[in-house]
């Protein structure tokens, strides 16, 4: 069973602060995705990273895939209240192209 552990579980910060969320595993993933989920809705895909060491930027969000493809991070610069939500990482294991393993989630609250 492949597991993805996210840290921290909860994060409460003020507008304008920077933060990093981590997604770690002992298993290798062929690709890794990040989702954001708002209350009462399903998760929405933010990004997919495929290559070890890959960095992708989405406005103020920077996503990195570890060199060994076992971990990933999400960095948010100058957080805004609109960034509030549950962030989930998810990975396709090698040889399991049809099933995603989801991380435990990081709940982010950004206040004014």
């Amino acid at each position, binding site marked *: 069973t492949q597991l993805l552990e996210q840290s921290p579980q909860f994060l409460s910060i003020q507008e304008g602060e920077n933060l990093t969320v981590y997604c770690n595993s002992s298993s290798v993933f062929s690709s890794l995705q990040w989702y954001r989920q708002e209350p009462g*809705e*399903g*998760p929405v*895909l933010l990004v997919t990273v495929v290559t070890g060491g890959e960095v992708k930027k989405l406005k103020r969000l920077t996503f990195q895939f570890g060199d060994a493809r076992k971990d990933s991070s999400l960095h948010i610069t100058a957080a805004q209240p609109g960034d509030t939500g549950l962030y989930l990482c998810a990975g396709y294991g090698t040889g399991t192209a049809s*099933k995603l393993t989801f991380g*435990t989630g990081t709940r982010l609250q950004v206040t004014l």
Partner: protein
Amino acid sequence: DAGITQSPRHKVTETGTPVTLRCHQTENHRYMYWYRQDPGHGLRLIHYSYGVKDTDKGEVSDGYSVSRSKTEDFLLTLESATSSQTSVYFCAITALGEQYFGPGTRLTVT
């Protein structure tokens, strides 16, 4: 929006009763999934389907069964609901390696 709807959106049922949740998609996607979401566990896969009448178990399949008689519909049945099955259930489809989720069904078993 990948044209995914779930019904019902909310349900309260009693322990021991059967419950069926429905997922409907309008875009002919081959793969469909049922997840449950509980605090501290992220999303856990219950069952998935890779075509009509083709289904397989996920990591938390005990107490659940599924059926897919048409491409557009994927049904999740709790044969005899228990309080541990109180959860939010999400249906998803995969398109080009990306998963798109329905709005969820909040199920409470009393």
